[in-house]
């Protein structure tokens, strides 16, 4: 196994040699680029990358330019996972046959996809890759909406959020369904490592990415990626919103090893009310009206129950 990269501090980390260029077309304040840099900078190993159609893809590969200083492939909306799995299969074949050009270097295989690609349209492809056990990492850039196409709901969109296909209105509070629990589903594949990460909790995130790179087999990372455009907050508030998500426990940070061993990796010193997280974003603005305010309490109850459940699972080691 290759050596794990040593990262001393944030300055050291943020000035690492970049294989993802600052020259890209992502919105100012987009968390995608922060997440991608943190993933790529967590290792010195060679990288073979894939992206599904979405914000990251359209903003980083507009011909004749590329933002990627590592081999990168995009096919379609649903198959970023399988694209990199195919490359991984070719690596194994050429290694066996002695035809690798750099036989002493073992690249890492990483696929990126938004929540639309991951929770919805690409779900089957990801499941197939994980069942087959490709040695790869799948990173979901979870902004809880089809942001690239203008803010339509996905199965990651949380209840009460207003989207263009489930808008809030006089008779509707917006999205009616709870967010799909993708991490539990991926853990149920028996994957050696799955984890939720937040780009603002960078030490926790890097530790998890490095654990993922060290694992043999398919690794799933669900990264919260606040979307300044669709969540409706100021571009300079991305990190603050991310902190609100983790500190309110709306987006708890934990990992599951080998499908069963659950560890909570971040316990906020001061747990803030869910109301504060929701209130900071325009997509939940309508919840702060008499008509729909009851949803905030319901939401707090769900977050409390999930946190309770995570702690019990952690304690029970199952």
């Amino acid at each position, binding site marked *: 196994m290759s050596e794990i990269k040593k990262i001393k501090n944030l300055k050291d980390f943020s000035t690492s040699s970049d294989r993802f260029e600052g020259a890209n077309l992502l919105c100012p304040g987009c968390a995608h680029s922060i997440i991608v840099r943190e993933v790529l900078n967590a290792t010195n190993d*060679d990288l*073979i990358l*894939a992206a599904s159609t979405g914000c990251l*893809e*359209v903003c980083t*590969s*507009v*011909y*004749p330019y*590329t933002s*990627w*200083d*590592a*081999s*990168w*492939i*995009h*096919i*379609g909306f*649903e*198959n970023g996972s*399988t*694209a*990199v*799995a*195919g*490359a*991984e*299969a*070719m*690596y*194994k*074949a*050429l290694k*066996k*046959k002695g*035809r*690798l*050009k*750099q036989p002493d*270097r073992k*690249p890492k295989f990483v696929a990126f996809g938004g929540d639309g690609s991951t929770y919805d349209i690409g779900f*089957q*492809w990801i*499941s*197939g890759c994980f*069942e*087959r056990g490709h040695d790869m990492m799948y990173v979901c850039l979870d902004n809880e909406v089809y942001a690239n196409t203008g803010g339509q709901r996905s199965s990651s969109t949380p209840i009460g959020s207003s989207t263009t296909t489930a808008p809030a209105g006089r008779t509707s509070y917006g999205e009616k369904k709870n967010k799909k629990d993708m991490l539990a589903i991926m853990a149920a594949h028996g994957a050696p490592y799955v984890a939720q990460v937040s780009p603002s909790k960078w030490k926790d995130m890097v530790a998890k990415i490095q654990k993922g790179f060290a694992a043999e087999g398919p690794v799933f990372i669900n990264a919260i990626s606040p979307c300044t455009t669709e969540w409706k907050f100021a571009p300079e508030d991305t990190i603050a919103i991310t902190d609100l998500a983790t500190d309110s426990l709306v987006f708890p940070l934990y990992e599951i090893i080998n499908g069963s061993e659950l560890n909570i990796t971040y316990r906020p010193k001061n747990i803030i009310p869910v109301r504060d997280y929701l209130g900071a974003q325009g997509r939940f603005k309508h919840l702060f009206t008499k008509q729909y305010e009851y949803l905030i309490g319901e939401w707090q109850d769900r977050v409390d129950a999930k946190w309770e459940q995570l702690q019990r699972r952690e304690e029970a080691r199952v």
Partner: protein
Amino acid sequence: MADTMELRDIEVWDGNMAASQALRQVQVDVVAAYPITPSTPIVENYGSFEANGYVDGEFVMVESEHAAMSGCIGASAAGGRVATATSSQGFALMVETLYAASGMRLPIILNVVNRAIGAPLNVNGDHSDMYLGRDSGWIQFDAYCPQDAYDLNFIAFKVAEDHDVRLPAMVHQDGFMTSHTAQGVHTMTDKQGFAFVGEFQPMNDMLDLDHPVTHGVQTEEDWHFEHKARQHHALMTIAMSKIQEAFDAFEKYTGRKYNLVETYNVEDADAVVVCMGSSVETAMEVVDELRAKGMKVGVVGIRVFRPWPLEQLAEVLKNVKAIAALDRSSPHGTVGMLFNEIAGTMFNTGTKAVLTNYIYGLGGRDLTKAHLVSIFNDLKANADAGKLTTPLQQYIGLRGPKLSFF
């Protein structure tokens, strides 16, 4: 290192086995596949080769045909020899990725065992899936028998992987009629078969870690048109000549000759049928019988469906008086695809030939010799009259009242 399989000079193989053996002999690096009737035995045979040490590449059985081609694209972009097989509904599910494979200029080989597309669901052979692929930017070879299915795979790899071409290629054969019909197949030894295609030469390979590449970019109105034009150019000019070169090289290598357009008794024929797949050989038998009775009839088989051999076909048909385009796919709302292609081929040639269209064999319905005799009789009447004496489009072999249009 994979074990060598000792083959007899002539093996009794069906079309599926012929294709599987070709994939084994060219030492494909990655096969990513999903089973579907009637192409399933191609991947089953291949799996058996792998399980017994005759294959040392990766064999990845994925969860759908879309994933199969997605995996093939990733593997091919990574830099190695890649192939798979499919049919019908699976082919239809793959379509999105077929366009990606050709647009990304990846030399993947896809064996398509032709089958009807539902609804109603049907497992038998027709050409609906082959026609569905015709605008996808792939080279399309058509096998009429197991021998062709074997040979054309080698030719397909040779052409597709040529660095001047870099386009994916399909090898078509008829579901069941060819795929499940065992015939004598002249073989090459493993060494000969591999040597014809040679070691894979990577280009823009993702796994060259010192030279990162970006595959599958975004282009809008500024560059998309130029990319597509280059792709078309590569098919029309480069691929076309490389196919001919590969046919010539293969003939020199094995003695077996293939042509962009196959002909049988066409030189002095007044009436010919143009068809594809296993029907070509059936039509050849009928031509023999009718020739014995003094009818000047012939058969034209399309061997290379894409790129369309327009000039070669026009040359072959230039003196013919009546032509029937035999389409094994429902055109749903117009004339058959072969009719359209032939009409487009002949339009500016000054031909006076009368062109008609027959829709036949949908969902595995037999095309009998009697059907072909009746078609040739129609053609003779058209040739003698110098004009249409029959409806332009007829359904043949259909139960119930006759169906015809125009």
